[in-house]
């Protein structure tokens, strides 16, 4: 029995349990599964961490992943990378694991649901002003929306909304379409070719995770850097005066 039929464009439509407005669908179920894998896996690996020279393979794997994430963030923010690791790292790991688990028969990636991608994009949408304001204050952050003149305010707002929408639709479109393509190909050419497409799908899934998290960091970094430039100008004025 197929978990999601071809007619059902999103796993949101596969309702497992529902009461009034509370709905438990496949998206939430598989999200919990991915969360459980990540949390339990992290707990198992990190419960016996070693800061000596000899470490376990799994610890090495996690350290490599975290180091790469830290490195990527550092390239954009220059300083305080560890502050953004939880958001960007979680985005990457959640999306990546969701997309890679597609290889398991019966699993439907939560990221193929527009609700999930919209929720993630909304988190980024909220995180950008959160980090910007928490670092430099609300005044400098809001001031950026009126740069270079107040006329640009609606454009800035539209830009914020459109890039959130872009994040949502890019991830949803890629993963959902890939699943549908695999489903169609299984009906048309059931041998070999779907396997190649699955491998391609894994690649696309990892790339999409990377793109989503990097773009999120770029948005956050752009807000931070704008604030940093303001600070540098203030410092320069202070020193010249």
């Amino acid at each position, binding site marked *: 029995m197929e978990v999601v039929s071809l007619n059902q464009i999103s796993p949101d439509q596969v309702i497992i349990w529902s009461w009034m407005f509370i709905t438990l669908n496949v998206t939430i179920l598989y999200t919990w599964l991915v969360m459980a894998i990540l949390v339990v896996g*992290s707990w198992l690996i990190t419960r016996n961490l070693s*800061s000596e020279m000899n470490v376990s393979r799994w610890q090495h794997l996690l350290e490599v992943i975290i180091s790469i994430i830290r490195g990527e963030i550092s390239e954009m923010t220059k300083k305080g990378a560890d502050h953004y690791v939880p958001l960007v790292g979680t985005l990457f790991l*959640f999306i990546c694991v969701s997309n890679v688990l597609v290889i398991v028969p019966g699993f439907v990636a939560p990221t193929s649901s*527009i609700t999930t991608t919209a*929720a993630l994009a*909304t*988190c980024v949408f909220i995180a950008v002003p959160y980090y910007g304001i928490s670092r430099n204050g609300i005044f400098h952050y809001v001031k950026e929306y009126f740069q270079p003149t107040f006329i640009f305010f609606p454009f800035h707002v539209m830009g914020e909304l459109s890039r959130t929408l872009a994040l949502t639709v890019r991830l949803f479109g890629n993963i959902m379409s890939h699943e549908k393509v695999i489903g169609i190909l299984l009906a048309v050419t059931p041998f070999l070719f779907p396997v190649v497409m699955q491998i391609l799908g894994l690649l696309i899934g990892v790339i999409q995770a990377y793109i989503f998290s990097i773009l999120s960091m770029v948005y956050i970094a752009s807000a931070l850097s704008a604030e940093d430039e303001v600070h540098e100008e203030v410092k320069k004025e202070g020193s010249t005066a």
Partner: protein
Amino acid sequence: MHIDWFVFLAQIFNFLLLMYLLKRFLYGRIIKAMDDREAKIAARFAEAEELKAKAGEAAEHYEKRNQLLNEKKEQMLNEATMAADAKRKELMEKVRAEVDQVKTRWQDMLIREQDAFFYDLRQRAAKQLYATARKALSDLADVDLEERIVDEFLRRVQELDEEKSVSIRKAISGGGNRVTIQSAFDIPVPRQVKIEEVLKKQITDGFTIRYLLEPDIVSGIELRVNGHKIAWSLNEYLELLVESLTETLQKEAHAA
């Protein structure tokens, strides 16, 4: 596409929860472990640098010490060489002195042997000469050699000058009026009487004569009295013979 707003909010909550859990169980721990390791590595590097510096200092110290030891060794070697040279010279001197001593001893021994040889030669030659002369005289001139010796002795006594006679006289009177006449042969009584007559006539009267047979007096006769002597023997001729023979031997030794 339909968005279920409950699911939407649930997913936001899920994501925030996941972020919190991962921050607690993953990022915090991993980053702390990595930072700790980095700090440990940095500490080890610092320690290694310190040890390296210490090792460098120790190496420099030992290098200097080694250099000092080498210099000391060189100095000791020079001193030992000088001491060995001095010792060698000393030993050489000692050996040379010993060799000289041995050589001197050997030469002394050689001279002694030579003297003994010549003494023996003289004795033999005298005997031989005496026998030959005696035979020749008796064969050719019918003359007894011993008598001729006594005659020659008596002639010498008679030819004594006054001064010598006086000194002998004094010696006889100082020596208890006793005169000793030694000869290599027995003097017959008539000749003894003749000798006594000549002595009394030539020197003095009132002494007694004692005759002694002394083979060492080579074919001769001698008068001894209190440190004075009147004698004749073949020794005088033999001395000449020995001198001549020694000269010849030495010349031949040098030539060899």
